[in-house]
Every structure is written in C-alpha cells, then in structure tokens.
C-alpha cells in the first residue's frame, strides 16, 4: 500500500514537472512572439507616420498651388470663389431617357429600313 502511494506521488510529481516545464517554454515562446509582434507594430507605426508626413508634405498648399498653375491648361482649376456656389433649384432636370435604338429599321421609314438592310 505504501509502495503504491510512493509510486503515485512520484508519477504525479514527474507529470507536474513535465507540464510546468512545457508551460514555461510555451510562455517564453509566447512572450517572444508578442515582442516580435510589438516590434512589428512599432515598425508599421513608424512607416505609417512617415507615410502620413509624406502625404502632408506632398499635399502642402504651396505645392498644390504650383501644381494647379502648372496644369492650368488641362485642369483649369481656380480658387473657390463666391459665385461657385449653386443652389439646388439652379440645377436643370436631366434630359429624359429615350429607349435605345437597337434596330434601325424598326423606327425608320420604309426607305430608311431598306437602306439599313
């Protein structure tokens, strides 16, 4: 009876030791993974801030003004003026859509139909 007790405790201790050992190593691995990820996040954040800075730099009003001047022929952009505001009732209704003419001889006169063929 006593021997059985000793053997069970020994096995239990061994089992727990192995489990603790594995857990320890898994924790360490997770920590390393977290560290790697946070380093990656930091890297990405840095990239993001660089890109943001670059975006702001490329969109600085000074440069945009120059680009507008350079491309005036093509784009014809002007500073926003008071007369650029419109009201909704100044917008005309769109032209009514007619059914598309797919077969010319259906709608054209007899002569036109022959021509179409």
């Amino acid at each position: 009876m006593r021997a059985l007790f000793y053997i069970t405790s020994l096995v239990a201790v061994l089992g727990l030791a192995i489990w603790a050992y594995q857990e320890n190593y898994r924790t360490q691995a997770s920590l390393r993974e977290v560290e790697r990820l946070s380093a990656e996040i930091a890297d990405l954040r840095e990239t993001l801030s660089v890109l943001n800075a670059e975006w702001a730099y490329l969109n600085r009003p000074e440069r945009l003004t120059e680009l507008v001047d350079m491309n005036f022929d093509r784009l014809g952009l002007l500073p926003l003026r008071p007369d650029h505001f419109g009201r909704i009732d100044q917008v005309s209704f769109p032209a009514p859509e007619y059914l598309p003419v797919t077969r010319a001889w259906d709608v054209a006169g007899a002569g036109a139909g022959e021509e179409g063929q």
Partner: protein
Amino acid sequence: MRRPLRPLARILEARAKGENPDTIERENLRARHEAERDRLRAQAEGRLLVLAVFFLCGFALIGLRMGHLAGSEAEEPRAATTTAKILAARADIVDRKGRILATNFTTHSLYAQPPQMIDKERAARELARIFPDLDADELHADFTGKRKFLWIKRRISPEQQQAVHDIGDPGLRFGPREMRLYPNGKLAAHVLGGARFGREGVRSAEVVGQAGVEKQFDTELRDPARAREPLRLSLDLTVQAAVERVLAGGMRLMNAKAASAILMDVETGEVVSLVSLPDFDPNERPTGGPKDDRSPLFNHAVQGVYELGSTFKIFTAAQALEEELVTPSTIMDTEGPMTWGRFRIRDFRDYGDEMSVEDVIVKSSNIGTARMALMIGGERQQAFFKRLGLFETTALEMPEAGTARPLLPPRWSEIVTMTASYGHGISASPMHLAAAYATVVNGGRKVEPTLLVRHTSAPGERVISEQTSLALRQMMRQVVVRGTASFGEVPGYAVGGKTGTADKPDPQGGYHDDKVIATFASIFPAHDPKYVLVVTLDEPEETSGEEPRRTAGWTAVPVGAEIIRRAAPLLGLPPEIEDGATVGVTLASN
C-alpha cells in the same frame, strides 16, 4: 559463511594440550569484530564519497550559476511583455480637420569616435565631400586631437547616411533621432513656433518646443500617455494658406513693411487663421530674439502692440449706446478743431458742424467720438475697456500672447479719455482688437480668443446688450456701404467693419507724419456675424494715385476684402442676397 567461535577440532586439540579453549573463542571473536569493522568502514567511506560527489555537484552548479549571473546582462524575470512601444515621443499637431501641421520624422545623427577610426584623413576628406558645409582640415584636426567623441551632424538624410556608410570607417556612427517636421513649411509658422533638440544622447534626443504652441503645450505634447493623441488646433489649413497668400500679395502691393491678419469665430473665439508677415520656416527656425519687431520671428498679430486708431471708435459708440446716452440717430456736434488745453483734435477732413452718431462712425469723426467719450467719462470708459479685455493680456494659448500687455497711459486724464475713444494713446495687439470686436458683434457676450478647438461654447459674460450689438453691426455695415471702408464690399457677404489709421510713434518722441499702421477690423456677414477679420498693415503706401495714400481705406480694406472673398467660400459660407439693410433700420430704433 560464518565461522564458528568455538571450532570443535581446535577446542579438542587445545584441551588435549591442556590449554584454555576460551582463548580460541576470544581470538575468533576478535577476528570477527575486525572484519565487521572493516566492512563498516568501507561502507562509511563509500557514503562519504557519494556525499562528497553530491556536494561537489551542488557547489559546482551554484558556482556556475553565479558565474553566469555575474557575467550576463541583468534581466528581470517577467511574466508579461510590455504593450506597444512608444515611438512618436512627441504628439502631432493637426488643424481643425485633422490635417497634419507638425509631426515627427525619424532621421539619424552622425557622430565620430576618433579612437576607433582607421583612416582619419580619408574620413575627413570624404565627409567634407558629402557635407559641403564641413571643412576637411577642421575635421581632421578634431579627429586627431584628444577628443574621444564628437558630433558631426545633428540630422542627416537617408542618402547622406548611405554615403557616410559607404566611407566604411568604423569610427563614424549613427544614432537615431526623432526630428520635428513641419510639412507645410512656412504655413502658420508663428502659431507653431518651432522645436529644437534639448538634452542629447547617442541613442535619442529630446525635442523641446521653442515658441508658439509647441512651447505652450510642451508638457502635453511630450507626455508619453498622450503621444497617440494629436493636439488639435482651431486653425484651418486651407483658409490659413489662402489668407497667407492674399496677405503676402497685399503687403507687396501696398509696400508695407509687415502685415498681420486674424480670422476669428465670433461665437467661440476660435482663431481660424492667424498670419504674421514676414514669416519664417519653422523647420529651419532662424536664430535671434523675437523681441525685435523687424525679425521674421516677431508675431505682429499677437506680440505687437500698436495704437490701433479709429477701430476703437466702435467701442466708444458701443458704450454710449449701451448706457443710452445716444442713439444711432442722435446729432453730435462735430465742429472742429476741438481744443482741450494745448491739444487740438481734428478730423481727417472737415465733415461739417454736426452729424448723427451713425455718421460719426461711418465717416470716422474724431471730434464726434471724443464728444461721446466726454459724455461717458473716463472712469466708466476704463471700466468698459477693461471688460472688453483691452487692459490685460489675451488668453490666447501662446507664450507670445502673455508678453503683449497693452500700453496704457499712466494717468487717465480727460484728454486720455478723448484720445483713447478713437484709439490713440492706448496700444493693444490686433488679437485684443479681434477678441473685442467678436465680443461686441456676437450679441454682446465676452469672447476669449483660443487656438484650440472648442467643443462647447459656453456663452461668456455679457458686456453689451443684444440691441446695442445689433445697432453696432448696422453701423459697421454702413461704414462699408457708404463710409471709409467702401473698398471692403464683397458681393454676397455683407461685410461690415471699421477702418483705423494711426500714425506710428517715433522712438525719438512724437509721431511720424508718413508712417502709419493701417487696420481694418471687419465682420461678415454683418446681419448675422460668423467671423471677425482684423487686417493690419505696417507702414503701407498705396502709390497708384498722384500722391501716396496711407489711410486704411486705401490699403488695409482692399486686402481685407480680398481675404474675405477668398476665405469665406472656404469656410463654407455661401453668398447671400442681403436683406439686412432694410430690416435693420426698424429694429435698431430703441
């Protein structure tokens, strides 16, 4: 096999010989004891050996561990890892719509450790080639001198870093550097201020705000807990750019030495645009004292205190109306010149012997205003100016604002009451003027200027009544429609305002005849004011006529009108067909 103690054969033999057989027994017993002793000793020795081995192993283990601990880098045992590292040590500054005004950029600094350098002469030569501002001989002298460490460049670009790397000298090293970047260059330079490196180490350097909001909010910007949360200013990037452009053009056209413009929300006091020219690039902030008003660092809108001239007449009219001493149609005696002791008060032109209060403002009559001030009296005038915030520094969040204390005469005599009523003998910054105008036109509630976005606008203390405010707005509209600011008309925006032209004080005493500060303080739209714009030109001269014109109506007003024309659509104000003129007259009479 146990040997018997009394072996029969030997006993019998001994008995036969007549010997005592007990000796045999004792002899055998002794032998047995000896054998037993030897066995026990061997066993004990074995155990000792095992124990010794155990102890040896134990001590060896402890010794090795100690050696390892002593030899390795100290590291705390940890159960958890830290969360995301703080990268941007200093928070960004953004405009009211979240566009970046200041951000951080990682660059590298270059330093040298001469003891580790291999070919000092070549390194010096190559460095001088990469950085044209460095001198090869000086570098060589530094490298061969006693120094063990020296900075070569505070900030270098990636291309330069690669070029230095290609020199391949192990004594040339790079340290990472957080650099403050203002991507918009000169835009809002005075508001942002600038930053410099504080304490410097090889691995990092602290970035310290030098002026403007960078200095004012230095602690908040550097707080690591708030690094991810940008500082949101009330400025609008596009409006600021447009105002800067127009003002720069206007300053050139009017041959002015300096100029400033402030665009402020009348309800909240948020400064949407703040420009002072000449300006500078905060990325390369020039050195020198900002105290000198010729320096580009000097903020004319906030730091400069000037006699702002006739723009103050609005305050006198406001008080006279508020205290019910006059109504807009009360007739004032404007016969000039008005004498007080040895002083004579004149108008720019003779406007006749009497005018209504409205016309006093519209034509900008000094005499009429001085008479109103006499009706009010010096003490009450001071109290009113104080309530408008014209006696104290403004609450604007800039270190420069704290230094701009209005200049007041030491004694508030009767002549001071008269001159102060039309803005002479009392100096204030354009920011004071903008805040006071916002206060009188928004319905009479005190406005504190701010550079931060206000989410809530708690109505300030009441300074004048709603009715007085309305009457003033109508007067200001009339100034533009038929008065001194007729160039200020912008179709659709119902601009109202008041001009002010003040002679500049001569440092030698007295006033210059040919140097003025021209100011245009305007509101738009006048029937329902949304914004206040204050434009100030320093020593303008309009030279299209036969003789140079310096009055604000010819200089500051057209510039102000152009700013409104450009900025108002950007602020999202559509032009309106004006109806205020007719409605106003009926409401104003009280």
